[in-house]
């Protein structure tokens, strides 16, 4: 019973789905546009809430898919459904026939330049959460030069009608607190501030992380948004914000400002998605057929979705969905 299952995207969702499908006796094929499997999570240093090295998780996942047929640096350029099989054309001109397609295309990071008032790309010392994570991983970033004062801005590109993203990006709150602790570990004398609207500590151990951030790391959490950023003569950042708990505006000079960029739908898949007849939901992510029982299904028979392509998701959420999509695909093949 060897049936090809085309998995588009080789991140956490794609790898985990492939692992499970292979165990079920099907033939998953992963198409990954970048030069390596692993997706965003492979760029991460440690994971919340317990500072677990991301590398451990990624390596285990990679090990599980070592026998899965994988195309790297490859994209699907055309796909057609003919009765109950799919015919895909890859960017290397190879043709693949498959019985089902799993869209595990994940997310893109919100382009921080779009919030011009935060000065990313204008002022040198404004960086994104992804860049900070890279600093933790490599220890190198010329902007981080023994900083004395560091600020984190939550919800950059999320819950913000002005950039047309009204949804919550789910993981940034916890990530910000994790990163705030980590930066304190590297620079214990630095003052660290986070500017939040709400702190959405939704998972197990997350609330504990929040308490730990304040008690053990002395990070100051300010409820209020940063409204504008400018640069002074010395290249330091002057931010204006509001402390809504005190009801007072505040102004502060920082050495580094970190923007917690939201997840946005990965738009590079739009053309293929359209060919497969999968619509977007009001947040711009892919529309699944039902929020509860059909979260892996789409309006199109044989086309499945898993992971952050349908909404912002944490790693455990994504792995859970990848496992459930395998079941759905298995049932579909054996219907």
């Amino acid at each position, binding site marked *: 019973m060897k049936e090809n299952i085309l998995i588009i995207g080789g991140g956490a969702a794609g790898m985990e789905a492939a692992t499970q499908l292979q165990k079920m006796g099907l033939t998953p094929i992963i198409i990954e546009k970048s030069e390596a499997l692993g997706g965003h999570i492979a760029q991460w240093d440690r994971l919340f809430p317990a500072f677990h090295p991301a590398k451990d998780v990624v390596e285990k996942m990679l090990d599980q898919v070592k026998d899965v047929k994988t195309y790297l640096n490859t994209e699907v350029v055309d796909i057609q459904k003919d009765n109950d099989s799919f015919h895909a054309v890859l960017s290397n001109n190879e043709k693949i026939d498959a019985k089902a397609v799993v869209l595990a295309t994940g997310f893109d990071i919100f382009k921080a330049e*779009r919030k*011009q*008032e935060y000065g990313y790309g204008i*002022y040198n010392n404004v960086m994104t959460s992804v860049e900070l994570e890279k600093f933790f991983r490599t220890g190198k970033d010329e902007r981080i030069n023994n900083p004395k004062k560091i600020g984190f801005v939550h919800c950059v590109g999320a819950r913000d*009608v002005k*950039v047309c993203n009204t949804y919550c990006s789910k993981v940034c709150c916890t990530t910000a607190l994790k990163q705030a602790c980590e930066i304190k570990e590297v620079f214990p004398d630095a003052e660290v501030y986070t500017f939040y609207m709400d702190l959405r500590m939704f998972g197990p151990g997350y609330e504990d992380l929040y308490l730990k951030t304040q008690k053990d790391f002395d990070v100051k959490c300010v409820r209020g948004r940063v409204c504008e*950023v*400018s640069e002074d003569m010395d290249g330091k950042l002057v931010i204006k914000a509001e402390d809504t708990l005190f009801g007072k505006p505040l*102004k502060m000079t920082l050495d580094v400002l970190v923007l917690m960029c939201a997840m946005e739908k990965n738009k590079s898949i739009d053309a293929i998605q359209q060919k497969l007849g999968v619509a977007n939901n009001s947040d711009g992510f892919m529309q699944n057929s039902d929020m509860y029982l059909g979260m892996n299904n789409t309006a199109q028979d044989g086309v499945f979705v898993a992971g952050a392509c349908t909404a912002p998701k944490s790693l455990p959420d994504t792995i859970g969905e990848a496992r459930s999509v395998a079941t759905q695909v298995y049932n579909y093949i054996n219907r």
Partner: protein
Amino acid sequence: MNSQIFHPFVLPFVLGMAFVLTYCFVGLIRVISQLPKDDRKKLGRSLVTPKTAWANIRDLFGDCLFHVKIWKRNPVLGYMHTAIAFGWFMIIVIGHVMLFTLKPLQGVEVEGLQGMFTNFYYPIFFKYFAEETPVFAFLMDFFLLMIISGILIAVVKKIHSKIVGVKRVMHFGFADTLIRFALWTIFPFRLIAEKTNIMAFWWLYSIDLLIFMCMLPFTRYMHIPTEALFILLRHAGIKVTEPRKGYALAELYSCPSCGLCIDACPMSVNDKMSGNTSAYFMKKLRNNDTEESQRIAETCLMCGKCVKICPLSIESCDIKFSQRAAVPYNINSDHSYLNVISTEAEKSQTNNHKPHVLYFAGCMTQLTPKIMRAMKQIMDKAGEDYQIMDENGGICCGRPMLLSGKVAEAKAMIEKNTELIKKSGAKRLVLSCPICYKVFKDEYHLEGIEILHHTQYIEELIKCGKIYVDRGDTKYVYHDPCELGRAFEIYDEPRYVIHSLGQIVDAKSEKENSICCGGSLGSFNLTQQERDAITENSVNDLMFNNPDEIVTACPLCLKTFARKSPVKVKDIAEIVSEKL
């Protein structure tokens, strides 16, 4: 020929005419008495000043009779209005000319009051009572047919407005529908009566006139007599002070509800929002529907397009401002912070150096730091002696407060800023935000200091060779911000600058027809979805000739378009700094 000088069918007309004349006279006294004393003096002076007197005559003929502005916008509608207004005017004039040249009443014993009474209705029903000479008969028939041709267009417009180039028309109630029918039938009845001399048509003609005159004060046709007064008041330089008094009242009754502003309004992207246009605002306020008129006053984007295209130049935005100001918000404003901020700002005015140019970025430019950085680069490159007024915090220009009708609060800010600007000793003030520019131009008293928007300033720097730019082959389209374009007609300066940087393509609607970006501070209660619809429409309009980049000169337009534009949106200062 009927040798009699009276017939009962003239009575309806006489009644109607007497009523409408009395009503207008009382209305005139009311408007004049509601004017502030100074405005009354202004009016008196303007009537005897040759310049304004000439403007009065020109506009009374040009606007009331010939509708020159409508001709310019839509010749078919122009003809419709001219045919009816000028034609009607001419048959009244010719009627009177006949009365005094043909002297049909000579030898008939009519004197004193009876004579006046006879003179009153005689020209209107001339043909019934006396014989016309062939020349007069031809003229009368000619103008009567001219009116009827105008009415035919009106009927077509009513049935299918798109034929005459109008997308959206006003929706009227019973009274307006009835009077319109009366107006449409007056002249055909007269023509039939004159040609057949059937009594019934003379009666119908007279009764139609009665209906028209009696309903006139309560419908949009009140604009016919009011317009003349409005023109005189406008030329006297009188401004709106209260939403339903004096000058504003004259404006309200002068609005003919022609609906030209409906198609022009940026909110008319859908049917629901087109009810927020000025024509409806004027109608609601005229009918004393305070709740609705207040809502529309607060919804308006204040882009000024309706004022610009209004055939009568009715300042509906001014009335909306005064309507906003009329509502107490009961918010205590604490301005103690102004002193704190100004001390901070003064710190940047270091060691008594008096800069030549003072640059005021404004709140919106602080939120678009790319513009500020570009301006610094440009001024550095040009070797200008400048200082930034609000680098370490500044005070709002006051326009948002003025837009919400909070004049006293705005004044507090204006005073503090004026003090700071004067203290700097600068000769020129450069602004990046048209919102600021408008208030600095209109409300600040900065004698001896030249106020420039950065589009004007950059144009000057390029023209006098202080900066050199490279011309590339990027295709730009320029969006005219409302407060720079329509408000101050700064159309050519930005286009000159863009032209020296690359190719400039036209938008579908440009200059005074430019469509608001949808981000305007003017509106209080448009939802984000409604604003988005406006923005999308405006972006589509700009993308008409497939430009590579959208260029604007307002930080608010920039931020608004950036959300919806398929191409990059940049400020004019940014594209200049890229090519230095």
